[in-house]
């Protein structure tokens, strides 16, 4: 029951996030959608991921987004309304993608797979950390290092892009 409630909330917030006129409202609805997704992760026993989701998305990305929105005074941000034909076309495209996906999924016979019980525990945070930093066959140390270099590069390049130009 609680799962369907969360499903409904995710769908509701996502729809509002793409359709509301003001982008400030959009950002808040995006926050709702991402937070409820963290709730879904809790149900899927990925507690660490749920925490990281809220930490990075709400505490990082959304704060940045709202900050950037606040720095600007532009009409398009409070009134980003597409034309009717554009709406219809986008609706057509997204519904056909959805229909295609549902058709493909329904041909896979996934009804029999139900949510595992607590007797099959999800990986713990320790296991996750070991997987990140392990140099064995199943380790992700290289990807981890590359991601950290990527983040550093992005940080520096963001500063370079946005910094004041010398007079």
């Amino acid at each position, binding site marked *: *029951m*609680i*799962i369907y409630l969360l499903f409904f909330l995710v769908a509701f917030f996502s729809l509002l996030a793409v359709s509301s006129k*003001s982008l*400030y*409202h959009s950002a*808040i609805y995006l*926050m709702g959608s991402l937070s409820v997704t963290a709730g879904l992760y*809790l*149900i899927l*026993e990925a*507690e*660490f991921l*749920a*925490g*990281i989701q*809220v*930490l990075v998305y*709400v*505490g*990082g990305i*959304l*704060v*940045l987004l*709202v*900050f950037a*929105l*606040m*720095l600007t005074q532009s009409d398009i941000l409070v009134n980003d309304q597409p034309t009717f034909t554009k709406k219809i076309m986008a609706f057509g495209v997204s519904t056909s993608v959805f229909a295609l996906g549902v058709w493909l999924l329904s041909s896979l016979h996934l009804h029999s797979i139900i*949510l595992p*019980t*607590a007797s099959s525990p999800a990986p713990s*945070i320790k296991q996750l950390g070991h997987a990140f930093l392990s140099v064995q066959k199943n380790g992700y140390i290289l990807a981890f290092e590359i991601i950290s270099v990527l983040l550093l590069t992005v940080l520096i390049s963001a500063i370079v892009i946005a910094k004041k130009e010398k007079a």
Partner: protein
Amino acid sequence: MKSLSFYIHNLYQNQQWLDFILYLGLGLILTLSLMSVVALVLVYAERKIAAHFQCRLGPMRVGWHGTLQTVADALKLLLKEDLIPKAADRFLFALAPFLTVMAALLSLSVLPFSLSATLSNMNIGLLFLSAISGYGVLGILIGGWASNNKWSLLGAMRAGAQLISYELSMTLSLLSIVVLSGSLNLNEIIASQAQGWWIWRAHLVGFISFVIYIISSTAETNRTPFDMAEGESELTAGFHTEYSGMRFAFFFLSEYVNLFIVSAIGSILFLGGWMPLHIGEWESFNALMDFVPGPIWFLLKTGALIFLSMWFRWTFPRLRVDQLMRFEWKFLLPLGLINLFLSSIIALGGFYFFP
């Protein structure tokens, strides 16, 4: 370990609806009452302490030594007219105080008052606490923007920039304790301090991260010397300039509850939480200390840290914005990184005092 997800799990596995609803309802009532009591006590304490620092008496009229002053103030705030500026964005203006209060409320729900008196013993407790604080930042930013007022906007921008900057070094100092204790669960972190509190057990590393934590938590709660967000002489009242009545009360409430929460986290991580004070081989002293129950210890340590924060307020002058940012990015953050590195060396080698 009975965490929230355990209860959610139970709900759809065994359909224990009544248990779940009782748990949620009781938890909500307990946290809400704790929140209001904390805010009332802290506001009174702040006024009294401030007064005595300035050789005044502070509130004296309402009740014995002014003890009912904050109750009267709260009543006044509730009865005040709730104004919404005409040009404000009504939806966001109404939402912002709720976001900050929600962050404070959720953070209170995971604090362990003793081993048994823990509402939600999450295995990601510390991560949860630092994640939830993001909603508070968002609430401040949105409230400042939605008021459609220059001072509010500037105050919110300053607050936002300050909060995201200082959150970095705060998280780094928390991480060094996570490395030392090897867990994110708050009760396990406390249990790992049975031999000695982290503030002195890990050579200087624990102490340095305690200092970093105290500085950055003062900044996180927007208190002097880091209260640029509401510098009265520059910005009237910062992000809550346009708020009045109940909504202002929400911001005010969450400010003091946040002070309690950061002090509580400090006492949990560095001062052993509900763990009684033990000194080496002094058996009788230790036995005497064990006699005092855990919640008392927890509240005592938290109270000490809160007093420290109030002491700061009347000791240090306010910083300038550029000084504040320079201090964080050029001093505190590198120090935190070095400290994290050292703490992982100590944790790997097991070089603790009192092993």
